[in-house]
């Protein structure tokens, strides 16, 4: 009998193909894009649901905004923005390669996009820090 833990280790452990650092760069970008895509797609509907508070008038909206601007939700927004940035940056690689740009320099494209993503996320962290501290 193979235990569940050792099965997970075999699938996702440091020696497995699915361990992020063992993935070829294209596969890593693909996996990151897919996971963040799922998160952001689900978020769209949460966003519509929350904005529907408009229909209940300005008082309900004010209460909703008080909750949404609380520190916890600003932090969740930061995580969401992180997912959006990862999705945008990895998706940009797809658009570039499909239009024939950088196909023969794909590693460099991945690195440049990674740097852009990190810089964008630093901006997002700064924004969240400003909102939380005040």
């Amino acid at each position: 009998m193979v235990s569940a833990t050792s099965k997970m280790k075999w699938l996702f452990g440091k020696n497995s193909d699915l361990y992020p650092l063992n993935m070829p760069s294209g596969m890593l970008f693909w996996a990151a894009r897919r996971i963040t895509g799922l998160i952001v797609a689900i978020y769209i509907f949460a966003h519509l649901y929350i904005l529907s508070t408009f229909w209940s008038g300005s008082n309900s909206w004010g209460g909703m905004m008080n909750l949404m601007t609380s520190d916890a939700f600003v932090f969740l927004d930061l995580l969401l923005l992180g997912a959006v940035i990862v999705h945008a940056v990895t998706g940009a690689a797809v658009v570039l390669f499909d239009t024939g740009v950088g196909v023969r320099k794909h590693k460099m494209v991945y690195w440049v996009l990674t740097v852009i993503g990190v810089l964008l996320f630093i901006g997002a962290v700064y924004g969240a820090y400003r909102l939380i501290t005040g």
Partner: protein
Amino acid sequence: MTNNPGKTKGTWAWLMQRVTAVLIIVFLGTHIYLTHFASFDIELLDWTQVEARVQALPILLIDYGLLITAIFHGLNGLRMIAFDFISANGKRRLADVGFWALGIFSVIWGLAIFSPFFN
């Protein structure tokens, strides 16, 4: 395309995913900037501020553009994931009906969301 013998080869889905991706970078970039970064001193987007933004036509058009492109892109992406697990053509067409219905419903929902500001 041996497992997809139907009429559709997915070319439009592929192309539109790229087109909406580029549009979303523009729309969402503007949306996030205007909503969260343009005015740090305004922590609370209160009713009157939302009203002013919604009644500014360029902002409304960007938000509606984002609504349509994001819902298409999101559902088309979910369809792509679903099709990694569904290979039977009939089930795929059934899934298509579901995705289109959900998409049209969501766009109408989104278009109607600002209605309290136009009364």
